[in-house]
């Protein structure tokens, strides 16, 4: 596989950002690696516009076809637990309080109080100012292995100066965030300033560094609904992966169009091709609008058939969701007991 992709993507090998093990690059203003990238602005544009096009109808048909897979019995039980373990249980409201966050953490650690075999969620996703609260609450609930993810970089619009975004990021990291969910500058992307987007991701990646500790993982949110075309989503995927994203994420959950099977499929394909070209694995996180077990299973089927089962792990695939968890729990109860469950039998947090 690598041989062929190496042909189309040969020039990538020389791009500095493609190496995940590269030492921390100097600050954005400095020359060297980033200066090279800046110098190849035209090359970056040429590369992104040289990616194979996406036919929207064919893509959506493929996503829909994968959605017709019928996942029953043992496979369904497996998928439900897997999906639960992949959830970034999220609250991103202006009205968030420590109490709300603590309740969410308790639920993430112990999703079904009546059934201790239910796996924990992957992470709790909050605003930066709630990171510390979340860390404490998880520890208190025995969920030290549940990550805390924090949105940052002037989420959700991303409309702030870079230093504000970086400060936002550093705050979250300092507060103990394991993962940072940043938003790209869609305005810059849509106006063709790809290098600006690239540099910003690189800078945030730097800000994820935690001296003396494990660096926070960086999830890069595109806001697919604003990028509008699948070609743009594919370009954004490559751009983010080249810039050092650990995970690429569909959306903030704050606009009309969030994750869809089709726009997630484009990202899965990009991740597949990126691995073939560079050997680097990138995670994917659809977020927003995934509310039912049926929906979640469709995504898992896509991951399974596009990337293979080694991506079926919370390290490589996440769901950004809140209400999804309760539906998964009700479906799980149904499988266990044979009866349909109801909302009164799952917790409301």
């Amino acid at each position: 596989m690598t041989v062929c992709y190496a042909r189309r993507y040969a020039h990538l090998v020389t791009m500095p950002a493609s190496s995940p093990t590269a030492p921390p690059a100097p600050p954005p203003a400095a020359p060297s690696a980033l200066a090279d990238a800046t110098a190849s602005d035209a090359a970056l544009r040429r590369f992104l516009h040289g990616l194979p096009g996406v036919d929207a109808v064919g893509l959506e048909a493929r996503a829909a076809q994968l959605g017709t897979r019928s996942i029953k019995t043992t496979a369904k039980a497996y998928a439900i637990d897997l999906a639960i373990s992949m959830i970034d249980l999220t609250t991103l409201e202006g009205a968030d309080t420590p109490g709300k966050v603590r309740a969410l953490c308790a639920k993430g650690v112990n999703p079904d109080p009546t059934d201790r075999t239910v796996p924990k969620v992957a992470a709790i996703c909050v605003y930066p100012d709630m990171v510390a609260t979340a860390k404490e609450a998880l520890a208190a609930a025995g969920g030290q292995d549940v990550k805390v993810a924090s949105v940052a970089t002037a989420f959700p619009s991303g409309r702030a100066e870079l230093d504000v975004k970086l400060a936002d990021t550093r705050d979250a990291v300092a507060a103990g965030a394991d993962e940072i969910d940043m938003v790209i500058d869609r305005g810059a992307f849509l106006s063709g300033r790809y290098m600006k987007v690239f540099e910003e991701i690189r800078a945030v990646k730097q800000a994820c560094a935690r001296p003396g500790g494990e660096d926070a993982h960086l999830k890069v949110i595109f806001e697919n609904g604003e990028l509008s075309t699948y070609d743009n989503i594919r370009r954004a995927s490559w751009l983010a992966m080249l810039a050092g994203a650990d995970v690429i994420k569909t959306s903030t959950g704050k606009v009309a169009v969030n994750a869809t099977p089709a726009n997630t499929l484009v990202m899965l394909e990009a991740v597949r091709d990126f691995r073939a070209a560079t050997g680097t694995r990138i995670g994917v996180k659809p977020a927003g609008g995934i509310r039912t077990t049926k929906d979640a299973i469709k995504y898992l089927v896509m991951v399974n058939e596009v990337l293979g089962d080694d991506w079926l792990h919370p390290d490589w695939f996440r769901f950004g969701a809140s209400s999804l968890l309760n539906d998964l729990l009700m479906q799980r109860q149904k499988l266990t007991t044979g009866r349909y469950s109801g909302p009164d039998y799952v917790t409301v947090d």
Partner: protein
Amino acid sequence: MSEQSGNPGGAARTRLGVLKTYKLFVGGKFPRSESGRVYEVTDTRGNWLANAPLASRKDARDAVVAARKAFGGWSGATAYNRGQILYRIAEMLEGRREQFTAEVAAAEGLSKAKAAARVDAAVDRWVWYAGWSDKIAQVAGGANPVAGPYFNLSTPEPTGVVAVLAPQESSLLGLVSVLAPVIVSGNTAVVVASERAPLPALSLAEVLATSDLPGGVVNVLSGRTAEIAAPLAAHQDVNAIDLAGADADLAKELETAAADNLKRVLRPADGGSAASDWSTDPGVKRMLAFVETKTVWHPVGV
């Protein structure tokens, strides 16, 4: 012609008419039959008119090669261009009304007035079809509203090389009525002229040759219809056959042979071409018999 060839001993004549050597029309050129054969053509009373080439299987083969060679250019020409050329044919024919009137009168045993009317009708038929060149696709094609996000368009395209057995009785108007609908859409043709009355067809070739019609688009053969038609019906590089000039038995034989490569077959009218009234509105049937509907799909997405 008859006034030139007849009355050889006429004492008052001071000048001997110059007879025309009728030739085949293949690939834009006027060859004799490769067989070297000719046959006697007479008027309806049995008077000798001329010797016409007696085309052979090999002449038919050469004509198919010429027609195939011309197909790409002719079918690829714009409909407007084809229309102008068909109109040019009408203009050229109009300019030779006298000659054709005499030939048709002799060939079909008509009075001069009636023959002239047939020639006029033939000219007008070219004009009528000239106008069709850029309309048939609109009438026969169009968008199909499929139930999905697809652009879907059907367009008629020429079938390819069409063998045309010209009507036996109507030597010019009948011929034009079957030839024009074949070529107007971009097909190329190998025409087998009326066996008994081939001279108007052979003269029409001279009109075609001076009408900007690319060589090979129309090829005209004279001779025994059954003899020439058989190899054409069986020819694997002929896409369709118009049996207008075949009688019932020959038509059946040719249709059977045509099945070998699934030629499109336009059967003769009930009662044979004698029963055909070429003066009526032709409609679009003959054009539609020699087009293929191509349907193209494309997704509609951003």
